[in-house]
């Protein structure tokens, strides 16, 4: 029996170790190792996908004893919540390596950091041991810090420091909550499955743990008003850094919100559900409105993440408040699918902004204009993903947001005002498309090269998946639904 899940967690790390052992590796060799390791990881993720999940339990479970004295062990496994996210992670990392492959700037170090980040990301979604989860969760911070600080743009040192301080301050309350649940479990254990089946905390202690967790995940998601690190980090990060940050790392927050807050503290979450809902609605509206005010294209997309993740928070809060299990499953299906859709669409948008910046050397929308003529393929791709991002039917966000709003209308009808954010998002994307791509092109832009083959290799899988989820979401939703509809989720 091959431990496929552990292999997919540690293959990238093995790639990083191989590169570490090759101090004289050329940029080409480094990129080759990165692409090979992440491609192999994606294949393993696809194998896991083909095996599917089972209702009410984790599959592909692998366990090794670790620190017996305190009941911590290496435990990993997947269910319908984590499996789609692992697939998304493996795909985005492979595409990022392909996109990055032309870079010559300290390629070996960059690839090592990226591979460490991939192990940390997949590990975060796969961990079934709270201590292990926390380890992976934090390791991702270190890699991202060095990536922003080393390869970012003008103000990178400040942005990197802010990112690290903010998210470390954010994640330490989670450690407190984990330790609290650990000390309350009998016998002592960090096994998340035990905590999910039989919540160790109750009453005021559960509420305190929930507040600590919500703080951690709110910073990570990010939820208004603790989102301020996000635009700074995104604007300064290199393109693939932004892709991974938005596509994968923001999902740590929403994943934790479901896995820890909702599953381990269901009663406390139900009691606080309305508060969480308010923060979700505020994020959705605020993210859209602030995005409307941006003139920097990358910042604009960064703020739409706040908006989209706000919908996820609404979905999870509605699931916590729902009394009807069917409605609860609808809300969770929507929230989890929204995570996947956001990873695909926003990942693609950050790739496109990076490709635009490579060509025009600016991110200011006012300085571009008329780009649809010189770079039609790039332009139409952007238009497609912009429409996907604003929730057009037939594209990836629609089935997710539809389910979230359906459940919201049933459980907490007032919160449906967040649907106004979609109108704002539509407006801001149309404005952006008009500013950047329509009109007469400036003479400077006449000779811009359109997307080359490598760019297409990066974008085509994302286009196909965005369409596939938009038109027939059943193939993803069926996996998610197996888990969310099970009793006791």
């Amino acid at each position, binding site marked *: 029996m091959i431990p496929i899940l552990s292999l997919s967690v540690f293959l990238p790390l093995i790639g990083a170790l191989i590169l570490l052992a090759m101090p004289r590796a050329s940029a080409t060799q480094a990129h080759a190792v990165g692409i090979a390791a992440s491609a192999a990881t994606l294949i393993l993720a696809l194998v896991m996908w083909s095996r599917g999940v089972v209702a009410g339990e984790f599959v592909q479970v692998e366990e090794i004893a670790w620190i017996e*004295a*305190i009941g911590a062990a290496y435990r990993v496994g997947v269910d319908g919540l984590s499996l789609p996210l692992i697939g998304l992670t493996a795909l985005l990392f492979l595409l990022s390596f392909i996109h990055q492959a032309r870079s010559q700037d300290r390629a070996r170090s960059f690839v090592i950091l990226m591979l460490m980040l991939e192990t940390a990301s997949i590990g975060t979604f796969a961990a079934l041991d709270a201590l292990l989860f926390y380890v992976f969760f*934090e*390791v991702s911070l*270190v890699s991202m810090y060095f990536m922003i*600080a080393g390869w970012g743009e003008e103000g990178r040192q400040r942005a990197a420091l802010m990112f690290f*301080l903010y998210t*470390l301050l954010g994640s*330490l309350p989670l450690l*407190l909550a984990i330790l609290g649940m650990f000390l309350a479990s009998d016998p002592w254990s960090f096994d998340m499955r035990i905590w999910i089946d039989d919540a160790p905390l109750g009453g005021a202690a559960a509420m305190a743990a929930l507040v600590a967790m919500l703080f951690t995940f709110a910073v990570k998601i990010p939820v208004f008003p603790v989102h301020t690190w996000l635009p700074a980090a995104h604007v300064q990060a290199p393109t693939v850094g932004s892709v991974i940050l938005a596509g994968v790392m923001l999902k740590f927050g929403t994943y934790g919100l479901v896995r820890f807050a909702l599953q381990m503290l269901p009663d406390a979450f139900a009691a606080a559900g309305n508060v969480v809902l308010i923060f979700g609605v505020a994020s959705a509206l605020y993210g859209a409105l602030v995005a409307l005010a941006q003139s920097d294209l990358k910042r604009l997309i960064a703020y739409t993440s706040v908006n989209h993740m706000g919908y996820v928070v609404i979905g999870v809060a509605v699931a916590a408040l729902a009394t009807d299990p069917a409605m609860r499953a609808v809300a969770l299906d929507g929230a989890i699918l929204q995570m996947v859709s956001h990873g695909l669409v926003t990942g693609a948008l950050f790739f496109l902004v990076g490709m635009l910046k490579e060509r025009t050397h600016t991110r200011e929308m006012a300085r571009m204009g008329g780009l649809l003529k010189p770079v039609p393929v790039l332009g139409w791709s952007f238009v497609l993903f912009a429409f996907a991002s604003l929730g057009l039917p037939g594209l990836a966000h629609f089935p997710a947001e539809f389910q979230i709003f359906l459940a919201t209308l049933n459980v907490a009808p007032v919160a449906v005002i967040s649907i106004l954010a979609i109108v704002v998002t539509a407006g801001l994307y149309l404005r952006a498309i008009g500013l950047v791509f329509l009109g007469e092109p400036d003479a400077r832009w006449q000779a811009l090269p359109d997307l080359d083959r490598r760019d297409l290799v990066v974008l085509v899988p994302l286009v196909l998946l965005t369409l596939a989820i938009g038109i027939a979401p059943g193939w993803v939703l069926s996996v998610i639904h197996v888990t969310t509809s099970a009793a006791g989720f």
Partner: protein
Amino acid sequence: MSRDLSFLLPELVLMVTAALMLAGEMIRRPRLVLGIGLVGLALATGLAWPLLKADTTVFGGTYRIGPLAVWSKLILLPATALSLLLARAELAGKFREGSVYSLMVLVSIGALMLAGSGDVMLLVLGVVLTGLGSFALVAWPADDPATEAAMKFLVFGSVAGAVMVYGLTFWFAGAGSTLLSALTGIDRAPVLAAAGLVGLLVGLGYKAALVPFHFWAPDAYEGAPVSVAAFLSVVTKVAAIFALAQALSALPVQTGWQWAVAVIAAISMTYGYLAALVQSNLVRLLAWSSVAQSGYFLLGLVAVGGGALARESLIVFAAAYAAMNIGAFAIVLIGGRDMEAIGGLGRRAPARAAAMSVFLLSLTGIPPLFGFFGKALLFGAALDAGFLWLVVVAILNSVLALGVYLRIVVALYAPAEAAQPAPQAGAAVSTVWIVTLVITLVMGVLTRLLTG
């Protein structure tokens, strides 16, 4: 008697080693002195290993052979050996370098005595024995800064020692015995218990560089050779913390000592990191950081009064702290004492810069490095003892810590000024940073070996 002595084999080996080292120094053979020291320390560590299963006392309860005492040997003796190697790298060829080696081994005997104390007299003896050697070590360079630092250290130490002895006599009055195990009933005489507690905290707090008894530490570390600073910040500090654990585990919690310790912990962490934030001299920065790290140790001490995980957390964090702190000092020894000196080390010597980043992130408590597991256990121990507020303070300080240590990381990866050559590093110091790096990297995953 022979039973008791069989438990003391590591200490006996060390005493013979120290005597032989002094003899070697008399005939001016520093390499021989170093060799004897390393072999003696290795032998003593090996002899301590079988004692791990023991949990007993010798000499009528005055000296404890339990997990804390034995682990102190297994942690502090290798740490002393690494300090010897650092000293060799720093001082090779200087006049009387062998005396540094022999003094370090002598101080390590005192440190073991402190960590295994079962009796008030032994505590005092341990403080004096480690103190005498430490003063001489700090003064060793015999230049103005070192002399000044050693004077401060000595004066401060004499006063703290006097207060300690005076305070501990109250315990004797209350308990009728100098044995620490006799303290269990002392809460019936709260004034005597409090007076003794003050003496204990002053004396050992000074040794562990806890706020407000820390004033000597930045000056002494800065004046002393870097290797001595590394040695003092690890060996005598951990010994003092373990000695506190030995004493406080017998003291009834009704005396309120947990609160005194918790307050000192909170102040030490916060003040240590705040002061470290503004340092540009790396040795001073690490001195202040070690003040803050002492505060973290106290989270485990609070739990000694009745909470699980106390012993495990102290042992794991002591091992982690020894590795990462000595490692950081080793890189400072290679790269230079100033923030500017190590600027751009990332380009000139990438492996050493990466190692320094690992040590600093581990000191911050970032997983999966060794320091994280130590801190997580400390947090768990304090939480279990009911000191949630202290854990919250510690957590907030972890963010401050990140600010302190990332300043160095940022400097490491700053663009190099000019094409400076990579700093030279001999085999001795390379051994130290590689060994401590491996421990910091992999022992976190293997923490189970220390908690069995």
